[in-house]
């Protein structure tokens, strides 16, 4: 015998803590920790709901397993992106504006000259300006 209100309350708590974790951290990896907490809240809720009598196809535990797998995939890609961000900008501080554009860097590396023939740009009067 178990009352299913208890795991429901725990799931709500974990989700709230995860939201706080996402918003209170500036380190990208730690934000991912908050995301993981929210995912686990969802997992717990799935298991809890699946424990109710009369759920067909063992949907609760199976979907939980699927979500765990998806979470593994997600965290892999997310951490790869974080590492790239760190390598490109030298920091993973999400309160700063990261330069994620592919445009030429505003301060080019020393010795790197601008391209000799920039592509002609079409301005609004239709005149080709190079």
């Amino acid at each position, binding site marked *: 015998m178990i009352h299913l209100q208890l795991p429901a*309350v725990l799931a709500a708590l974990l989700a709230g803590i995860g939201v706080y974790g996402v918003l209170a951290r500036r*380190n990208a*990896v730690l934000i991912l920790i908050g995301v993981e907490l929210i995912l686990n809240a969802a997992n717990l809720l799935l298991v809890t709901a699946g424990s109710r009598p009369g759920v067909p196809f063992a949907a609760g535990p199976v979907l939980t397993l699927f979500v765990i797998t998806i979470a593994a995939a997600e965290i*892999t890609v997310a951490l790869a992106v974080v590492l790239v961000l760190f390598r490109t900008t030298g920091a993973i501080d999400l*309160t700063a504006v990261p330069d994620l554009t592919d445009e030429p860097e505003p301060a080019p590396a020393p010795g*790197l000259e601008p391209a000799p023939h920039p592509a002609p740009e079409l301005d609004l009067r239709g005149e080709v300006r190079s």
Partner: protein
Amino acid sequence: MTTRDIVFAAVGAITALSALLSVTTKHVVHSALWLLVSLGTLAGCYLVLGQELVGLVQLLVYVGAIVVLVLFALMLTRAPIGPHAEIDTPAWQRVVGAVLGAATTVLLAALLLPLFSGVTVDLDGGAPGGTPAIAQAVFGTWVWPFELLSVLLLVALIGAFAVSRLVLRREDESSAARSEVRP
């Protein structure tokens, strides 16, 4: 209150507490370690709920793989050892975050408690969906989503690889351009 209720409450309290600690601690590495505790005890929660397979997979994948990955990522991004005040957002953002988190909790609780009020499950005679049932469902009803998931994992693997290669190649080009400029 049954015995299972008490056990679940105890394990759940540890889970919630360690989760709270992992989002509030000033030590970067501690945060990951508290996450480890939280996810481990959550596996315990699954056991209490009678889902042994889910609990074991939770231990294997989350505790065994994901937290290790997080720790690796922290090391690779040169996370500072020891207490560090700079890992948190400004105070007002944290206040807003706390309000939003509390709101989420209240909202979910207000939604879920009526749904589950008075619902009890008798787990002493074995869970309704035991491991054999799960195995049957996974390889029967859910076999196509299962296969798709394996493809998803493969895509994620290649995607992570490609993301890192992409940037590496750009760096190669810029260094090559630099060497061209300086003959």
